[in-house]
């Protein structure tokens, strides 16, 4: 099989330099790991330094003192590496091109630097937002943000001055003005542990949900309570009064079943850890999707951990989800694997016919450029599809109004022939054609077969690379050639490897139903269903139900004529 394919393969040269955007821990570490693979790296950072450019507190990063040193060691290594060029106070201005051949422009002050790179790694950081205003509090000597508290705890002098000059009751508010996450909780837990160890200090935490879904947090939660930290979990946001030096917190405690009143000397208000505001601009410049809540990754398991929707552009660390250092490190090592896999030794063997544009038919209407979910298409005098970036989904081929694009292994002639063959040679009386995305419906069919689940005798499955490749033409041809029913099986919304191939298929199925009705066919002969690869039993019930439906409608009236 491989030998047959070789005839259709060609070797191309690609650029192996890598651009890393963001000089926080994840970006700096990524630059270091990628340079160790032998690639040249361009590391750009908006701020004045790398490693921890936002000067985030060590507790937030989860760093102990020894690790802090390790971070400095990393910065030294990256700065002195002859494989890495570090540009601080530098912004990305534009990117064009495709994986293996991106052109990037960055600006450092008045200078514009242009560079060719093969891959791009985005490592923006998270943002901190103090939430005191949401609690209707003003910051004061006795009302602090979480970061301010951490600074006090980190400084011997401030700690003595503020915490040790007399008994202090310190209350923390967390989880009422945001959903929060384990990293937010970890900061609070580290602070209250430190406070509870300070002579004469008491710590109270008023929390929404205690987010302990991270290594060792439950233990830290227990340790705190053993040291006298009191956790309250009111169902509603406490009433807080701020009157100069006098602070009051009142809430209904669901366990004691009565009102609890606290009068702390110090109040520490939570901070939200959320996506970097820069992400939106980065997404626009790189033409990658902005995911939920401003993170640079769609909520789609096929992208996890480090893929964006464009081949060759990767996202790591807090650019894609809130992460402390350990998980950022995990991302970085994953991206090193992906970069190595993509760039290799600079020579790449690619199929010649993955997606072929008929230059005689293309009128550069750019429908393909707009609909390609992978950003794989560019143009000169005609549309060009990058064989490195193309994922072979075929959405462009189905959307092209001039029918100028064909997908290797799934060209229109082959698929129409397959439809005809199935209808002519099927078993049993009834002909049910099921178009299946190879990632979901096709796998579910294989599972149903392997597990001896019930399947109609006249069932024929036609595999497509993505439901987005199922043309209306295929559906209508099936009916014209005598199919009694047609099913379109796509991945669930949010699970399509090509992001929106499934929704395109659904729209087309709807359009085909309309055409069927116009021509006097029952539209119920066609259905669109979403399914996953591990849903063999659903596959069976979907096709069996369809068979029942067709039996009620009767056979395709065109059958005898063809």
């Amino acid at each position, binding site marked *: 099989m491989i030998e047959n394919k070789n005839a259709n393969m060609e070797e191309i040269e690609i650029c192996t330099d890598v651009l890393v955007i963001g000089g926080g821990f994840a970006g700096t570490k990524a630059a270091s790991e990628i340079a160790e693979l032998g690639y040249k790296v361009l590391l750009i950072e908006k701020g004045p330094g790398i490693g921890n450019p936002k000067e985030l507190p060590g507790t937030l990063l989860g760093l102990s003192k020894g*690790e802090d040193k390790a971070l400095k060691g990393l910065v030294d290594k990256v700065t002195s590496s002859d494989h890495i060029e570090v540009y601080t106070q530098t912004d990305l201005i534009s990117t064009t091109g495709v994986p293996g051949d991106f052109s990037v422009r960055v600006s450092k002050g008045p200078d514009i630097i242009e560079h060719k790179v093969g891959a791009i790694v985005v490592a923006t950081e998270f943002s901190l937002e103090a939430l005191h205003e949401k609690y209707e509090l003003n910051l004061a000597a006795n009302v602090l943000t979480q970061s301010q508290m951490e600074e006090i705890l980190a400084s011997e002098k401030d700690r003595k001055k503020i915490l040790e000059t007399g008994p202090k009751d310190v209350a923390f508010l967390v989880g009422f003005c945001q959903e929060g996450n384990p990293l937010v909780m970890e900061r609070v837990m580290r602070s209250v542990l430190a406070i509870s160890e300070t002579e004469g200090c008491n710590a109270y935490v008023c929390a929404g949900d*205690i987010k*302990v*879904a991270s*290594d060792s947090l439950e233990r830290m939660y227990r340790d705190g309570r053993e040291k006298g930290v009191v956790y309250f979990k009111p169902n509603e946001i406490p009433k807080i009064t701020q009157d100069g030096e006098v602070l009051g917190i009142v809430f209904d405690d669901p366990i004691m079943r009565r009102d609890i009143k606290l009068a702390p000397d110090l109040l520490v208000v939570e901070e939200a850890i959320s996506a970097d505001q820069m992400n939106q601009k980065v997404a626009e410049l790189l033409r990658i999707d902005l995911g*939920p809540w401003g993170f640079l990754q769609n909520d789609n398991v096929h992208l*996890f951990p480090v893929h964006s929707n464009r081949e060759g552009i990767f996202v790591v660390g807090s650019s894609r989800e809130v992460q402390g250092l350990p998980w950022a490190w*995990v991302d970085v090592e*994953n991206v090193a694997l992906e970069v190595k896999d993509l760039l290799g030794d600079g020579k790449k063997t690619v199929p010649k016919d993955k997606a072929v544009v008929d230059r005689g038919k293309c009128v550069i209407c750019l429908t393909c450029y707009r609909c390609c979910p992978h950003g794989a298409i560019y143009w000169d005098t005609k549309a060009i599809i990058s064989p490195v970036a193309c994922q072979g989904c075929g959405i462009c081929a189905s959307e092209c109004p001039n029918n100028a694009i064909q997908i290797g292994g799934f060209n229109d002639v082959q698929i129409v022939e397959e439809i005809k063959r199935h209808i002519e040679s099927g078993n049993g009386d009834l002909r049910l054609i099921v178009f299946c995305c190879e990632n979901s419906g096709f796998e579910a069919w294989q599972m149903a077969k*392997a597990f001896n689940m019930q399947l109609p005798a006249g069932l024929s499955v036609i595999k497509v690379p993505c439901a987005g490749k199922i043309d209306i033409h295929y559906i209508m041809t099936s009916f014209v050639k005598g199919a009694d029913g047609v099913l379109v099986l796509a991945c669930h919304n949010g699970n399509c490897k090509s992001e929106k191939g499934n929704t395109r298929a659904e729209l087309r199925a709807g359009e085909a139903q309309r055409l069927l009705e116009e021509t006097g066919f029952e539209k119920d002969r066609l259905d669109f269903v979403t399914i996953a690869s591990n849903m063999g039993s659903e596959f069976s019930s979907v096709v069996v139900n369809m068979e029942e439906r067709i039996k009620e409608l009767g056979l395709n009236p065109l059958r005898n004529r063809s």
Partner: protein
Amino acid sequence: MSEKNLGSVMVIGGGIAGLTAAWDLSRFGIEVHLVEKTSFLGGHAIQFCCKATDECQQCGACTVEKMLNNVIDEPKIKTHLRTEIEKVHHNGRFTVTVNVGPKYIDQAKCTSCGICLEKCPVEGALQRGYSKNNIPLYAIYEDKCLFVKDKSCTVCQDTCPEGAIVLNTTGSSDELEVDAVILAAGFQPFDAQEKPGYGYGEFNNVITGLDLERLIRENGLGISTPDGKIPQKVAFIQCVGSRDERLGNLWCSQVCCPYALRMSEAIKHKNPDTEIAVFYMDVQNTGNNFPTFYEKVKSDLRLIRIIPSDIYSTEDNKLCLQYMGEDDGLPVKEEFDLVVLSVGIMPGSDNKTLSELLGINLDEDGFFLCLDEINKSLTSKDGIFIAGTSQGPKSITASMAHAGQAACEAMKYLGVNE
């Protein structure tokens, strides 16, 4: 074309972390020996069901199917099923002596027709894998098989049309030489019988989250109670075995809130009339989209912030939960048709043995200890790396990412990049 010898790695454990680590290594030309003690690859995660409503809920179960598919198609990965580590000798390289259990079913001959399962007279003696990508798809379980017990039954062997089953088979021993080891031995789900108040094993409509995953995977989302009815009222009880000071389990399993909430949403989507209550301590996040997802959850399900400690069976075979009412603090008795215990992630049953064989330590909870606070795939021993839930509770996607890290570290150790 001559290829540089890049070295070889043994991956211990064929669950999602092991599969991912093996595949990541093979992508770069490294030979992998994938060692799995059971008859099937895929571990626990291959037993999990799709939890999509109209929308994918990002549980990751389908990615396990995909990864298994990758691995079985990859010639660089040699899979050793029913294989356990016997002895490890580390002298630069690792010489690993393994015990291979008898392979009664010849995978080259088996066509997965399923006649053996149909004919086997003893429930559980012959079982089918959870995925079509399990090769062979069927396996004989020695604790139940009558031939293994007293040679009294050869029905499967006699009826197999391909002659693929030979019951009179013995195991063997083998020696494998590798340059590095990735430990991905996984977890064991909490044994719900350790909380006797819940009546798991006693009441047939008390099931675990893992049971529910398997049921849905096999039969689809139209779930029914053991007496065949559509359950009108379902309860999920969270933190069964996790966050439990009395048991000494001082960790959050990290996956139970996501799986319970996603399954509840999926069941509700399939059958909107089913009422679902989730008893919980603290709701943990499901992913980036959690704030949006949680709003939907709150409108579809009843979330009750208390963990009931006992379940009683009523005369009409319903389950009664007693808990403190949230409004007035008075005890409430509520009946359910089905109760799902959200069992947590416990350290693997072989962790102790493996830690002794490999000479690496366990942490105070019984998971494998990582040497470095920030790099969670390094162990105290050069050349041995950890991946997945061996190190601590993880979701499918987190296990896969962690396995990628372990693979990357192993490659650095092998000097592949030089």
